[in-house]
Structures are given as structure tokens and as C-alpha cells.
């Protein structure tokens, strides 16, 4: 069962971006305690096998009828086996044959697999299709059966069996090298080398082999483990060459004498397990280091982001500029956020705050824009209203009153009732926000059946009606479609239909047009405006685009570095942006979007 795991599963994630991995991998590996421990065990096992004659004075094959099945003791360190042979010396010499056999298989597999992988990956063409055919063929054969057949024909030689097994395992290396090489073949640095007249041989050895070196070592240690397992398995069944001491032959003898001396299987079993575990841990540790060093850029970026927010939170604690409005509302606001703070506790005990002291209120029936650049904390604020912060995120302080109830304190079951039913969500990126495995119809009807208690037929009818309402030309067809069959604009319409399906009071739209084409953006904004007027729903729209605000919003909150800097009616903020950050956002519109030009006139 392990043999295929190696040939198929490993290749893709190991090969990903291996170029970055070359640097310092060995040094990093030596700092991984588990990896070093595994490597030390392997070295010890190899040394014990190599220096067997120094560690024992017994001949591993010396049969002695007088000392059959003796327990461990003075004469024999680990006792004797069913033929009176010294177990300790057989274990040491057995290591020699077992390890050498597995090494041979690994060598053959690596030689065939790497060579054919390089040729197929670098030159492609007919060789590639032939090689992939042979690979499929080899992988469809159960190794053990082939080896049994080969043994029947060629006799029980350890070396022959291991060479054949090496051929069977070659796909493990072939796939790995082929994927890596065909990925790297058209990279710029390879092109550059080719253009500057470097020979193919040099390109392969200098630029390509270095890329696959570490993954090949990982694969080799796994293949080595599998070769040991299979070889020991065959010997254990009694199909090996009985004249040489191997761990498998020892197991065979131990199993025969299982009733009389159970510990005979323990020593070779322990040797096999120890070697196997050490090889697996070695491969895992090397892979962990490889994957980590393959993405240092991401970690640096994350560190930079944290630094930025930290700097932001340390900024001057100025008050929010509030534009006074004639006649304050009679009704209590639908959503009233006060002094909200959101943070992510770090492993070192500190807390990275992404939102500081945000207060804003949203009146019934209004469209409220929450505007700010990316990283200002506006999406985090929106998610906190739904209590769907990414894992690790917490509301540290403040309250979120929805219709009088503090959402930061209600139990999860109550929150689940509110979600979808009273507070709904329209995401930013339509294609990644639909479950790819279910039809649109299924995803639309599931919440309606829970929230509105509709029957299957009723939910279907309502879903079709909603799809029509959001402007989908053929609701029946879309209902039966899967997400990957829709365009981005269509998917966003579906998500909007989903958001309003259970008659919510508040819809939180997180940059609902950012991921769409410009023409479709306008259509989606129109749709939101229509729905808002038709259904009378309150909308909190998160955006970084003043054009969207101008199109839709009654009131606006401007957010910068985790706090609200300016707030008021859209009209008065457009007429008189007071905070420098708000003004800079207006400047940004001028730069990026001439279509929204008219508002430039309102600038002071």
C-alpha cells in the first residue's frame, strides 16, 4: 500500500517553487531536531551494518544444533534462532544485505526515473507520451505479484529482485523530475542560458538538476523505505535467498517459531520499524524545511503588514470629524457600533490590533458606505458584525448593537439565527464565494428552507423568482448550474440573490464590485440600488471607491488605520471633505478613474 503513495501523492507539493529552496536548505535542516534525530538513527544503523565484523565475533550463518533457540545471555547477546545461529550477528549482517538491496533498488529507480524525467521534461515530444504510458503501465501492476513471478523465472536472488523492483518504482522519480523540469523548462533563466549558447547538457546539470535535488532526496528516502518493506516482506514469506542473512529471513524464522520464542520476531521487526520511521521522519523534516524556505516572501509580506497595522495603532489619537446634520433621526439606529476594537492574539502573547475604537451608526433604510484603503480595517469591521472573523480574530472591546441587542455578547446559536435571516452578507470575490461542488439552486434553497421553513418546491420557486429579480436571463438554467459555469457578474448576482433571499433587515456588502469588470460594476450597483428601494433593506457597503459611495450611499464613514476619521452624509462629505485622508482619497479618484470626473468639481 505504501508503494503507490510514493509514486503518486508526493510529487505536486514537493515540486512547487523549489528554486527558492536551494539556499540554506541543508543548514536549516540541521536545525530541525526531529530531522537530525532521524538522520542520526539512520547513520547509526548504517554504521552498525558496515562495521558488523567489529561488533560481533559470530558467523551469521553458523548453524549449531546444540544451541537452538537459546535466550539472550552471556554467550549470545540476543540469543539464537531456530537453527542455533547468533541473532545479534544476523541482525548486523542482515542490515548489510537488507540495506544494500534497498539501496540498489533506489539507485535503479532514481537512475531510470531521473534520466527519463529529464529527457521527457526537457525535450518533450514523443518521448514524453511514451514515458507517461510506461508509467501508467508500471503503476497498474501490483509490485509483489511481479516480483513473485520474476523470482519464479529468475530464481531467488536478492539483487535481481531489487533491480526489478527499482524498475517498478522508477515512476516515483519520473513524475517528480518531469513535473519540475517541464515547469522550469520555459523559465527565463533557462531561456537566457540557452540564448547565450550554453549546451543542453550544461543547462540540465547546472540549472535543472539543482532544482530537483532536494525533492529527489526526499523521494529517495521514501523509495528506500518502501524497498526495505517489500524486500523484507518477500523474504518473510520465504521467497528470498535463504542462504544470506537478511532481516526478512530473520522474520521468517521468527514467525515459524512464534509459538516457541516470540522475541525472535522482535529484533528484526524493531530494526525494520526503526529504519522505516527514521526514513519517514527524515523525509518529512526535509520536506517541511523545503516548503518553508520556498515561501519566505509571504512571511516577509505578513510581517510587513503586521508592522504597518502596529504603526497605525500607535498613531495620533484624534477624534472623528462628524459632519453635523440638520434634524437628527427620530428612530434608534439599526446598527450601532461603539468603540469597537478587533485584534489577533499572537503566539508570543501580544495582540495585533487591526481595528481601534470604531464607532458608527447605521440608520434604518439607509445605505451606509464604509470607505478606506485596503488594510484600513473596514472588512474586519464588517465581518465582526456577522461575527465571522477569520480564525484567531476576536472582538477585544466595544459593542455592536443590532436592533438593541449586543452582537458581541449573544450566544452562537442566537447569532446563527440572525445570520442570513436578519443580517446578510455579499462578498467581494464572487467566484470564490460559491461552493464549487453544489449547484446554484442547492446553495440558494438550503438557507431558505432553514430560515423561512419553506418546502423544497416552495424554496425552488422562490429561488427562481429571486434569480429573475437580480437580472439573470435564464433562471432555470442558472438554478441547475454549478459555479464554474457562471461568469463573475452572474455569480455576483447569484450571491446578491442569496443575501436577500431570507428578507434580511441589514445587508453587509464587502466591496461587491471590486472583482468585476467596469461595465458589470455599474450594473451591479444599479441592481443594489433597485433592490434597496424595492425591499427597503438597510445596506452597509464596504468599499475603497468614492465612485461607489457617490452612486449609492446616503451616509459615509471614512476609515483609516483601524479608526473612523470622518463621518457624515455623503452629500456633505463630498462637498466638504475635512480630514486630510478623505481628501487624499478624493485625489485618488482623479488619478485612477476619469469616468467619475464630475465629483472633482466638488473638491475645495
Amino acid at each position, binding site marked *: *500500500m*505504501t*508503494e*503507490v*503513495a510514493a509514486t*503518486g*501523492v508526493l510529487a505536486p507539493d514537493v515540486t512547487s517553487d523549489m528554486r527558492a529552496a536551494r539556499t540554506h536548505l541543508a543548514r536549516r535542516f540541521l536545525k530541525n531536531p526531529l530531522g537530525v534525530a532521524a538522520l542520526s538513527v539512520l547513520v547509526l544503523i548504517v554504521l552498525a551494518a558496515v562495521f558488523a565484523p567489529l561488533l560481533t565475533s559470530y558467523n551469521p550463518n553458523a548453524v549449531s544444533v546444540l544451541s537452538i533457540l537459546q535466550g539472550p545471555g552471556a554467550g549470545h547477546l540476543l540469543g539464537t534462532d531456530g537453527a542455533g545461529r547468533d541473532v545479534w550477528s544476523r541482525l548486523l549482517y542482515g542490515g548489510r544485505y537488507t540495506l544494500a538491496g534497498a539501496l540498489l533498488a533506489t539507485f535503479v529507480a532514481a537512475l531510470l526515473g531521473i534520466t527519463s524525467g529529464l529527457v521527457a521534461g526537457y525535450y518533450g515530444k514523443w518521448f514524453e507520451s511514451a514515458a507517461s504510458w510506461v508509467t*501508467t503501465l508500471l503503476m*497498474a*501492476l*501490483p*509490485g*509483489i*505479484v511481479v516480483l*513473485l*513471478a520474476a523470482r*519464479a*523465472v529468475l530464481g531467488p536472488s536478492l539483487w535481481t529482485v531489487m533491480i526489478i523492483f527499482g524498475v517498478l518504482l522508477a515512476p516515483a522519480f519520473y513524475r517528480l523530475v518531469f513535473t519540475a523540469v517541464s515547469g522550469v523548462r520555459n523559465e527565463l533563466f533557462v531561456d537566457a542560458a540557452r540564448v547565450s549558447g550554453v549546451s543542453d547538457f550544461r543547462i540540465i546539470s547546472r540549472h535543472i538538476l539543482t532544482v530537483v535535488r532536494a525533492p529527489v532526496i526526499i523521494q529517495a528516502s521514501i523509495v528506500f*523505505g518502501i524497498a526495505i*518493506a517489500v524486500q523484507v*516482506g518477500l523474504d*518473510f*514469506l520465504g*521467497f528470498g535467498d535463504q542462504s544470506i542473512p537478511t532481516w526478512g529471513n530473520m522474520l521468517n524464522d521468527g*514467525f515459524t517459531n*512464534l509459538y516457541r520464542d*516470540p522475541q525472535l520476531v522482535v529484533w528484526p*521487526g524493531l530494526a*525494520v*520499524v526503526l529504519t*522505516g*520511521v527514521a*526514513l*519517514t*521522519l527524515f523525509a*518529512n523534516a526535509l520536506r517541511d524545511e523545503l516548503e518553508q524556505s520556498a515561501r519566505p516572501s509571504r512571511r516577509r509580506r505578513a510581517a510587513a503588514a503586521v508592522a504597518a497595522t502596529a504603526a497605525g495603532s500607535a498613531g495620533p489619537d484624534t477624534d472623528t470629524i462628524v459632519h453635523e446634520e440638520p434634524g437628527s433621526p427620530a428612530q434608534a439606529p439599526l446598527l450601532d457600533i461603539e468603540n469597537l476594537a478587533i485584534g489577533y492574539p499572537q503566539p508570543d502573547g501580544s495582540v495585533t490590533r487591526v481595528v481601534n475604537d470604531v464607532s458608527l451608526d447605521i440608520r434604518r433604510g439607509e445605505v451606509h458606505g464604509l470607505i478606506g484603503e485596503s488594510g484600513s480595517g473596514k472588512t474586519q469591521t464588517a465581518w465582526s458584525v*456577522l461575527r*465571522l472573523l477569520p480564525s484567531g480574530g476576536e472582538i477585544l472591546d466595544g459593542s455592536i448593537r443590532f436592533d438593541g441587542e449586543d452582537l458581541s455578547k449573544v450566544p452562537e446559536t442566537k447569532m*446563527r*439565527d440572525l*445570520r*442570513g*435571516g436578519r443580517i*446578510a452578507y455579499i*462578498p467581494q470575490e464572487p467566484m*470564490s*464565494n460559491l*461552493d*464549487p*461542488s*453544489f449547484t446554484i439552486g442547492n*446553495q440558494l434553497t*438550503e*438557507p431558505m428552507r*432553514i*430560515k423561512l421553513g419553506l418546502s423544497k418546491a416552495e424554496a425552488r420557486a422562490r429561488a427562481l423568482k429571486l434569480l429573475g429579480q437580480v437580472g439573470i436571463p435564464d433562471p432555470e438554467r442558472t438554478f441547475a448550474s*454549478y459555479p*464554474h459555469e457562471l461568469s463573475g457578474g452572474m455569480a455576483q448576482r447569484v450571491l446578491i440573490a*442569496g443575501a436577500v433571499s*431570507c428578507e434580511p433587515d441589514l445587508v453587509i456588502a464587502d466591496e461587491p464590485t471590486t472583482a468585476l469588470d467596469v461595465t458589470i460594476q455599474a450594473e451591479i450597483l444599479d441592481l443594489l440600488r433597485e433592490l434597496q428601494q424595492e425591499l427597503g433593506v438597510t445596506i452597509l457597503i464596504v468599499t475603497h471607491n468614492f465612485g461607489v459611495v457617490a452612486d449609492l450611499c446616503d451616509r459615509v464613514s471614512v476609515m483609516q488605520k483601524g479608526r473612523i476619521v470622518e463621518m457624515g452624509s455623503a452629500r456633505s462629505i463630498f462637498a466638504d471633505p475635512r480630514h486630510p485622508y478623505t481628501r487624499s482619497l478624493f485625489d485618488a479618484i482623479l488619478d485612477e478613474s476619469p469616468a467619475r470626473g464630475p465629483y472633482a468639481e466638488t473638491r475645495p
Partner: protein
Amino acid sequence: MLTFTVRRLLYGVLLLFVIVTLAYLLLYAAAGNVGRTILGPTATQATVALKNQQLGLNSPLLSRYFSWLGHALTGNFGSSWFTNQPVTTAILTRLQVTLTLVFGAVIVSAVVSAVLGVWAALRGGWVDRVIQVFSVLGFAVPGFLIAVFLVRYFALGLHWFKPTGYVPITYYFGGWVRTVTLPVIALSIGLVAGVAQQVRSSVIDALRQDWVRTLRSRGLSERSVLFKHVLRNAGGPALSVLALSFVGLLGGAVIIEEVFGIPGLGQVAVLATSEGDVPLVMGLVVAIGVIVILVNLVIDLLQGFLNPKARIS
């Protein structure tokens, strides 16, 4: 979808044809003097020649191959050289035993891996670490060693199960359970190690997807999000691992059947190859090839069910 399935099936049949042809030519080319092998060193030259003639071994290899292929297509694979039992009978009687073990192991591994993988993905912490350690052990320790251990403690020690033999389920259910449990466990552990790891990482992966937040925002219960949506999306990669391991599982069954003395295909394989019973070996090659093709077909269909994108390709 249908054309895709048909194409995969045809591809499988072609592959089987290539394997069978290679196996036939190689096995017969290497078989040597068959009559001598069967009759032993004491037989006279004349009887050996007669035996070879009876077996039709005097005609050229290629014509023998085509005649075998013609018969094989009608389901006639000849008879064993040593027992004279028809190959089809010899294989069919043992096939269901091996299939019981292999499919038992597949089902047990699928269920256990799903539970362990999801658990590790959701809980993290010590549960995750325990499962990681278990995975390393399961991957590194050969199945037959686990089998020996199980026999030693649960059959010989505690007498909960039978150490050897096989009782058909139709004959006596209790006996069947006592004979198949340990072999199925021994076969499953290595598979669970690989598949649980895959389930774990694909569940973690799926939970990070945007649509999970959107589904939650619709007010779906955590149970529905997890078991209906996340698990279905995580199922595809896990199924691939399971499928890739299937061929290895058939190989593993050979050794496990030997350890537990179970009269399945593995025993036929061991016997036929050690005696050099070429007709029987050829029958095995065909049987295993057909099983592998059928299993791959079922896996393809399941993948199509789980992943709508796979249906169009």
C-alpha cells in the same frame, strides 16, 4: 461524462492488453523446459517430450499466444499445469475472499481516515499531533509486521480472533468476523495513515475557502457547513489517494493472506509463481488487471459525483 467514461474504459482495456501480452511473452520465453519442470528430474526424456506436446508447447510462441488470447476472450484460460484445475475455477473461488479483504480494508480505511482527518483538522493541538505520529508509524511500519503483532496479541494472546483460516460469510457470520477482522486491520493501517493525512490537509484547505464564510453568513448550521459542504470538497483529493493505493493494496493482500493462511488470490499467486504454473499466473494477471480497471472506473465516476468540474473534462 459518458464519452469520458467510455474513453477511460477503452484506455484501461488497451492497457490490460499490453500488460497481458508482455506477461505472456516474457513468462513463456523464460519458462524453459516446462515438461521437465512438471514431471521432475526422474522422468524420462520421452515422457517429458510427450508432456510438452500435450501442453501444446511445441508450436511457435506467437501462434500459442493468439490461440490463448482467443480462448481467453471466451473466458477459457486453460488449466493449471500441476493440478489440472481450470484456471477460471481456481481464480473465481478465491477471488471473493481477496475482494472481501481488499474492499473491507478500503471501506474501513475510508471511514477511519475521514473521522481521524476531520478530527485532526478541526481540533488541532494534541489530537492532531497524536494522529500525525500515528500516520508516520502507519506509513513506516510494513503491514505484515502489524499482522504478526496482531496475531501474536489478539489471536494467540487474547483469543479474540482466529490466527489463521477463513470462514465464508454465508457459512457462519461469527466465524467470518473472527477470521477477517485482523487481516482487514493489518491491510488498513498503512492506507489510513496516507488517506487521513490527505483528508486532514484538504479539510484545513477547504475551511480556509471564502465560500465557507459565505455559507456561514447565510445562517447554515456548523454541521451542514462541515459535513455537507467542506467534506464533499475535501473528498476528491482523499479519493485520489485511496485510488492510487488500491494497486498496492492488492499486493499487500498477497502477504497478509500468507500470514493469516487465508485461501485467496494471494495464495494462488504465491503457489503459481513458486511452481512456475504459467497458465495460472496468466489468469491472475488478467484478474488483477480487470479489478484495477473496474476500480479506477468507479473512482472516476465518484470523482465526477464529488467534483462537478471533473465531469466536463
